[in-house]
């Protein structure tokens, strides 16, 4: 297995904290993704480290007993510490506010606090075995105000900070889940749902374990225009993931992950089943909209992409791992500090260790080693692991950092050694342009909405975000096509076929093709003397009309005479290039034709007489000069009542030339009445 084979890796710079030991307790807060190292109950110091802030927060607090749970509110404003099963202590971290601790006891009599979650910088939820209590913290008053509460028996709870949803496990089997959603001082109860437990032998009581449930949000939408609900829009879709272990009584081939979709409104629905085809101990992560399932027994992981096509049985979709199982890439514990100076070799880190704790969405913590990693997906190795290019594109287009990988896949499929067939290339282009078109449409609707003044009335109207999956013509041109056409060893037939395929795909999605792509086609055709092909493409308007293209054609006239006609036709169709047409005709000494053309479109009163007289003189055809001269005399007569040229027209030399050839008496006499 080469190094390029690993498609999962731990982040290079983990959050490092003091290892857990009898005097140092370690806590993790999923909302702020912070690790708390509490030494001696806080008396000898608390160190808080987050993934983003490299400057840890350190403080001391009095040792008032064993800390059960410790979390900052959002933005690190208020610290909450649970030391007993009845109370939570608070301490303000806001400047100018008193730092004296204050305490809140849970309201429900005889209830035990299971834990608490911050839902904003000043709002907190207590979860007790008898229900939940939603409080507002008033830091300046050093007190809390109960906003709302709800009573029910709770076995355990789970919090998804991205969607601000708390899931409570109820009933004896623990498998009825009651979700609550919190937002700006409100708490709303969502429909509860039941997780189907696998059949178990009669001797053991089945129950749903907290360890087998995870919550994650996926597929944040970027388009602002289809808004089924504000939740979906802001947070993506919330899924409850249930790890259903293999049961000997059923005939399933292994454990499965069942995905329940929890919409903002309406009932939770079982949507996807991920087939693991193995048994044992598993852990789940969600990275880049992929469900990652770690398997401890084999020390490997697999990934699932629920956006890829699976087998749909009418109600749920079955998915298989996108790729063969692989270990997370071997990881060397970085050596920092003065130790790095010594020639000490880096220590390989034990992967899939039993001391690992996994948090959503992508966090792996090794408390015994004192590391917090973010799990990452490496896209490059996947390119070679997924031979089906269509599926590969579907996969890559859903990933965050996909742009350069997709472009390299495109370059690769056009390279001589790994050349793909034209139908495959067409499929890839179609998939790219499908994404591109979606974005263009969203942009356009946004622009129209802004123009219509909807931006003020609808605060949700947001400019569509351009993800990396949007590969426009300039990306493909710069990174793929321009290098591709330069390759001398490529048969030109293939080069042209590929360019036409890309243009076909753009057209199919009704995307206006940029002229540089047309120029690329022309350049390639001209290089191989395929002028007749070029002519046919132009004849069917495959290469769209534009002034640059018309000029390019004009420049080809000496190699291919019909290019002149093609160019003039194009200028005519543009209907904004009348000046250019006159110039082209004059340069060909077709003075009369130029004059007729400009008269035909009614522009003959505004043209420069000097320009036409110059051109006529150059033909050395005296009769032509006479004709043109007379035309302008008549124009002068009509416009100004006199056939004479005005000094501003700078035609003195032409008047002199006319007199010299035809004599003074040939000049037109002013008509007098």
């Amino acid at each position, binding site marked *: 297995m080469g190094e390029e084979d690993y498609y999962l890796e731990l982040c290079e710079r983990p959050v490092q904290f003091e290892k857990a030991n009898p005097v140092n307790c370690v806590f993790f807060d999923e909302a702020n993704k912070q690790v708390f190292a509490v030494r001696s109950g806080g008396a000898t110091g608390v160190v808080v480290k987050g993934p983003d802030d490299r400057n840890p927060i350190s403080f001391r607090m009095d040792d008032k007993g064993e800390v059960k749970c410790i979390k900052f509110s959002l933005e690190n404003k208020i610290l909450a510490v649970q030391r007993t099963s009845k109370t939570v202590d608070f301490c303000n971290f806001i400047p100018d506010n008193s730092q004296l601790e204050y305490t809140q006891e849970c309201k429900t009599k005889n209830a035990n606090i299971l834990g608490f979650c911050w839902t904003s910088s000043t709002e907190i939820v207590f979860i007790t075995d008898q229900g939940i209590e939603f409080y507002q913290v008033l830091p300046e008053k050093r007190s809390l105000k109960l906003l709302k509460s709800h009573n029910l028996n709770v076995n355990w709870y789970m919090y998804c900070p991205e969607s601000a949803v708390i899931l409570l496990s109820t009933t004896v089997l623990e498998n009825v889940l009651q979700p609550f959603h919190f937002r700006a001082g409100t708490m709303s109860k969502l429909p509860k749902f039941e997780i189907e437990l696998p059949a178990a032998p009669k001797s053991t009581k089945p129950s749903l374990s907290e360890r087998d449930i995870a919550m994650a949000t996926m597929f944040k939408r970027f388009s602002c225009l289809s808004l089924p609900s504000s939740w979906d829009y802001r947070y993506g879709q919330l899924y409850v993931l249930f790890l259903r272990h293999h049961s000997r009584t059923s005939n399933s081939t292994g454990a499965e992950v069942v995905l329940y979709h929890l919409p903002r409104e309406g009932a939770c629905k079982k949507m996807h089943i991920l087939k693991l085809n193995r048994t044992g101990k598993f852990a789940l992560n969600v990275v880049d909209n992929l469900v990652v399932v770690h398997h401890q027994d084999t020390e490997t992981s697999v990934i699932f992409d629920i956006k890829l096509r699976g087998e749909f049985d009418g109600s749920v979709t079955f998915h298989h791992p996108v790729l063969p199982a692989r270990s997370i890439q071997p990881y060397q514990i970085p050596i920092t500090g003065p130790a790095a100076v010594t020639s000490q070799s880096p220590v390989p880190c034990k992967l899939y260790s039993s001391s690992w704790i996994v948090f959503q969405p992508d966090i792996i913590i090794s408390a015994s080693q004192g590391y917090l990693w973010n799990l990452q997906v490496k896209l490059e190795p996947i390119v070679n692991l997924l031979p089906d290019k269509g599926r590969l594109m579907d996969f890559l287009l859903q990933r965050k950092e996909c742009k350069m990988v997709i472009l390299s896949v495109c370059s690769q499929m056009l390279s001589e050694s790994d050349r793909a067939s034209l139908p495959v290339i067409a499929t890839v282009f179609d998939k790219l342009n499908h994404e591109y078109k979606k974005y263009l449409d969203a942009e356009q609707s946004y622009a129209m909405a802004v123009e219509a003044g909807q931006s003020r009335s609808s605060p949700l109207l947001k400019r569509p975000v351009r993800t990396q999956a949007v590969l426009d013509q300039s990306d493909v041109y710069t990174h793929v096509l321009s290098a591709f056409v330069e390759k001398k060893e490529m048969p030109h037939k293939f080069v042209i076929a590929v360019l036409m*395929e890309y243009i076909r795909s753009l057209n199919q999605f009704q995307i206006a093709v940029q002229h540089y792509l047309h120029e690329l086609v022309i350049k390639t055709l001209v290089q191989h003397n395929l002028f*007749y092909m070029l002519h046919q493409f132009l*004849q069917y308007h495959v290469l769209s009309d534009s002034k640059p293209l018309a000029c390019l054609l004009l420049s080809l006239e000496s190699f291919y005479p019909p290019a*002149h006609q093609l160019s003039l036709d194009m200028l005519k169709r543009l209907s904004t290039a009348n000046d250019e047409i006159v110039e082209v005709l004059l340069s060909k000494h077709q003075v009369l034709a130029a004059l007729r053309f400009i008269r035909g479109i009614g522009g003959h009163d505004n043209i420069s007489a000097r320009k036409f007289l110059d051109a006529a003189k150059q033909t050395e055809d005296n009769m032509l000069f006479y004709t043109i001269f007379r035309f302008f005399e008549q124009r002068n007569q009509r416009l100004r009542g006199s056939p004479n040229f005005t000094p501003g027209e700078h035609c003195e030399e032409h008047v002199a030339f006319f007199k010299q050839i035809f004599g003074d008496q040939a000049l037109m006499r002013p008509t007098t009445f």
Partner: protein
Amino acid sequence: MAAAAAGAGSGPWAAQEKQFPPALLSFFIYNPRFGPREGQEENKILFYHPNEVEKNEKIRNVGLCEAIVQFTRTFSPSKPAKSLHTQKNRQFFNEPEENFWMVMVVRNPIIEKQSKDGKPVIEYQEEELLDKVYSSVLRQCYSMYKLFNGTFLKAMEDGGVKLLKERLEKFFHRYLQTLHLQSCDLLDIFGGISFFPLDKMTYLKIQSFINRMEESLNIVKYTAFLYNDQLIWSGLEQDDMRILYKYLTTSLFPRHIEPELAGRDSPIRAEMPGNLQHYGRFLTGPLNLNDPDAKCRFPKIFVNTDDTYEELHLIVYKAMSAAVCFMIDASVHPTLDFCRRLDSIVGPQLTVLASDICEQFNINKRMSGSEKEPQFKFIYFNHMNLAEKSTVHMRKTPSVSLTSVHPDLMKILGDINSDFTRVDEDEEIIVKAMSDYWVVGKKSDRRELYVILNQKNANLIEVNEVKKLCATQFNNIFFLD
């Protein structure tokens, strides 16, 4: 602008009058180098039609042509004589390859009248034939020969005079019967190609189809695509395509129309195992792919004879109205397996494409509005891409190309064309013909347009209809007024 009134009227004909159209009198090919001495004259003659002519007469006729060409060359060394006008006939000379001369002798049309004493009087119409038309026909004879046999010189290299004579005999024996000199006209001068009008997207789909086919049938060198006998794509160069198009549309396709109409060899072959139902079939090559002894012989054609000189097999495959020509190098011999593979790959896709084109074409036709019969008929030709369009001609049949206008009008068109050839400038010629007909010829930057108008008591000013036509039918091109 020039206006002229041509007295091309048709006088009242006596009932007893009989008309005889122009006819081919003789056709021969010779090379003066092959029998330069006295007594060897016969060696010069490579082909002579009609063959029954007595040997000495052949020699005499060839000698006469040789003499005329030699004699006129003294006056115009660069442009030797092209034709010789006599009372009874006209001779056309062409030297397609150095020292190889082709001569076609056409009898002038005849009117047979009854004199007062009841005896028939024959009157030759010396001025009826147009030089340009028949010179073009003669040149076309050579091009067609060359398409299927290569150059004269190549035959000489391959097998000497004997082989050349054999090839000429074999080819022209049949070809001359298809000449139909009485219906040659302006379109023979142009030798144009009718292009199928198509929207960009469908055109790109066809491009994509062709590229894919060339990729999967990797021995294909060139491809051409036609729909409704009109060209959509040619991988061949223009001149080669021009003559191939002529062959396809006047010979190959018409030969296959009748069986199609009669419903014979119904192309749906559901019995082919593992094959999608499709309408594809070979117009050249094997008739029945299920017959294990089917012959996979395709006509050979010769293209790019000026430089690379390529010999190719011509595979013509058709599904509904869409026809594809695949041309493969002659050194590769297509097997029955190859033909079956081609049929299974191309057949289904071409069938789908053909119905797409048909659908798109109907949509476009509907969008362009109901087609009212216009007040005029026209012929358009562009020298640059050989595009030709005629509302004067009806559909071509294997025997004759039918026109919907009087032959006299066609002759006026030919005359205008001759006038256009004489000068380089763009110009417009308006002719008043008989019985309320006006003919307008217009030439602008290598394009020619001929319009025939029939308007009661129209005068020169009203003939401005042509401007309207230019504005509506040709608004996409630069056409000077």
